[in-house]
């Protein structure tokens, strides 16, 4: 069972996010964009030939984990594949 401070935290966070709403024009924009974007099949070779991850400016030599995260996350999202990085 939730204690009092937990219940307060839940209420507070919900109040915070419910103060703002998406713009009214967002539905029309979505449908317009969807009508003009091809939903053709995905060519997985594109992931390797044309990677979507941006070349992050590396500030440290050992920044490989950030680059790896970005590569997996952005490519998987771009091509509609679910990847989970823990």
């Amino acid at each position, binding site marked *: 069972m939730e204690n009092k*401070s*937990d219940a*307060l*935290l*839940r*209420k*507070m*966070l*919900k*109040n*915070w*996010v*419910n*103060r*703002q*709403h*998406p*713009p009214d024009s*967002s*539905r029309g*924009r*979505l*449908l317009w*964009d*969807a*009508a003009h*974007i091809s*939903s053709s*099949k*995905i060519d997985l070779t594109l992931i390797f030939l044309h990677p979507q991850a*941006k070349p*992050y*400016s590396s500030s440290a030599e050992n920044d490989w984990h*950030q680059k790896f*995260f*970005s590569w997996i*996350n*952005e490519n*998987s*999202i771009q091509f*509609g*594949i*679910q*990847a*989970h*990085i*823990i």
Partner: protein
Amino acid sequence: MSKGAEEKRVISDSELALSLQAGSLEALGVLYDRHRGLVFRTALAITGDAEAAADLMHDVFLRLHRFAAHIDPQRPLEPWLYRMTTNLSYTWVKRRQRWFRPLEDVADWLAGTHKDTPAYQAEMDDSWRQVQQAVSSLPLSHRGVVVLYYVNDLSLQEISEILDIPVGTVKSRLHYGRQALKQNLGLLAGEILPELQYEFT
């Protein structure tokens, strides 16, 4: 079934997903109307930025349309939406932390629209900014769990499946995230701001 009852029958997500796979934009519109709240709230809570949340919401539904063929209509749609929203929100936050933020700050400074201006301050109440800052200060992995648990009322098991992490990890992240939030918001010392406690309707 009478004609009236048939007209009032709510079309299931599963049926809409099938229509979406056949290219129906109407189905996309209905799914958008039905689920935009959960997507927007989740993205807003993770990014702390309403404009970004609106863009991410647009992106999530556009991907739903584009990759409809890869969605199993027999499975609930909400976990897919939560997973896509958290993934995209994580990427947005990572990018911003890396290098967009300094560029945006410079652009704001050059344009004279820095977020410390009186207009911005007035727009965003201090108390709510405190909540936003408290959430944004959480590590990203903790933030995702806290948002799904408190804002979206998901169970530990559901969060575990959405984020593909063990339930024990969800519990651990929730514990540390919750403690940090309560400390930052004064909930541990009973200093809770009264204006944040009103009943949401």
